[in-house]
């Protein structure tokens, strides 16, 4: 005889389910309890320990990722800052360079002006300074275009000079520019005086960058190295402005053949001083304006 519980038969299929629920509940309780129980090392609960242990790799990975991202962001920020700072420094450097260039140019111009002004004490009736815009040398014709004209009071016949000596004279005047004939032009001439002996002659350009001193008698004691200056006898150039130095003296039939090296380096002219024209030229200009001969 088999003793059976009808109720148990009825509940049979559901019996294991209850066990599972029980096991689950118990397990959960144990878990909760254990979670609340302090760990052996008293460094927190077991749950916390477990969670921390379980989370450690993830936390480490995420943290590493975070650090990498932060580091990358910082690097990017630093790079961007460095780039922007670099740009700013470059701009500043360019600005400083420009400023330095301008200051150098101003200093150079000031020293040139001072040099010209220092010379102006020895040059009479200074009208002003002018830049040399163009120097031309062709077939003996040597001329220069200067950046001063009638607007600056320049008239045809104004002598031009630099600190070293006489350069030439203005021959054509425009409103803001003028053309000047250089002393080394093959057609140019000026009254000249040998500074040491006081003898008078005529200096002529040879069209090749040199000068000849003519009309000096063979009895003269002129020698190489003597200073030649303007004599003021030609009605164009003022007196006492250096022209050049004697380089060689040869004997001719009546007069000495004297070669003169110009005091001015004509190929390197950058600025000139414009002097007032001689009274003879001013009279001539006024006469031309008034119509009298």
């Amino acid at each position: 005889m088999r003793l059976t519980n009808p109720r148990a038969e009825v509940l049979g299929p559901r019996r294991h389910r209850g066990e599972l629920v029980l096991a689950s509940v118990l397990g959960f309780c144990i878990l909760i309890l254990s979670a609340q129980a302090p760990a052996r090392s008293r460094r927190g609960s077991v749950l916390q320990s477990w969670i921390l242990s379980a989370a450690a790799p993830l936390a480490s990975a995420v943290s590493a990722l975070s650090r990498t991202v932060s580091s990358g962001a910082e690097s990017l920020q630093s790079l961007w800052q460095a780039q922007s700072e670099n740009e700013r420094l470059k701009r500043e450097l360019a600005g400083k360079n420009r400023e330095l260039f301008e200051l150098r140019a101003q200093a150079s111009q000031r020293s040139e002006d001072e040099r010209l002004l220092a010379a102006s004490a020895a040059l009479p009736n200074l009208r002003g300074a002018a830049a040399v815009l163009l120097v031309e040398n062709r077939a003996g014709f040597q001329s220069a275009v200067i950046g001063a004209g009638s607007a600056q009071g320049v008239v045809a016949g104004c002598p031009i000079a630099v600190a070293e000596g006489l350069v030439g004279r203005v021959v054509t005047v425009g409103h803001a520019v003028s053309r000047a004939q250089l002393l080394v032009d093959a057609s140019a001439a000026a009254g000249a005086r040998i500074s040491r002996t006081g003898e008078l002659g005529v200096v002529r350009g040879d069209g090749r960058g040199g000068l000849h001193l003519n009309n000096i008698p063979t009895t003269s004691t002129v020698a190489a190295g003597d200073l030649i200056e303007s004599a003021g006898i030609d009605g164009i150039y003022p007196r006492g402005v250096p022209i050049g130095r004697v380089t060689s003296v040869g004997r001719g039939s009546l007069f000495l053949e004297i070669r003169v090296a110009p005091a001015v380096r004509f190929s390197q002219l950058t600025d000139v001083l414009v002097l007032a024209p001689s009274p003879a030229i001013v009279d001539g200009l006024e006469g031309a304006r008034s119509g009298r001969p």
Partner: protein
Amino acid sequence: MKLGRIALLLAAATALQFFVGGSPHRAVWPVDFFLLATGMVARGGDFVRAVLVGGVVGIVEDALNHDLIGMNAFAKAALGYGLAFLSIRVMFGGPWAVGGALAAASLVNDLIVAVLGSLLLQAPIVLFSREALWRAVATGASGGVLEAARLFPWREWWERRRLRRLR
């Protein structure tokens, strides 16, 4: 050569003449840019344009540098014709020939101006000075370099360079 290019050439020649002529180092490489411009127009073989361009640049040069306007215009118009003739009739070319022709033209320009100055202004004739010879050398060399640059196969060179980079 088209008229627009000619106008541009004349403006560039004038600007360069001032640029070099206003420099304190003007004697280092004294190229006659006006003659170069004339030569470049004459290189096309058009007599009329070469002569007209020579005349115009000569007048500009005279206005800037000489008492008489027309001496350089005369010389450069004649040289424009001569150079155009050379470019058409004479069977030689290349940078050396162009450079030599321009150097000779520079000296002939000086000769014509000197003779005209002597006749019209009673100025002493100054020929073949050191500056004139150096200007002829500079003008000839510059013209030769320009001709070499004109003849250089820039397109092929650029294509070869591009292909070399792609490999």
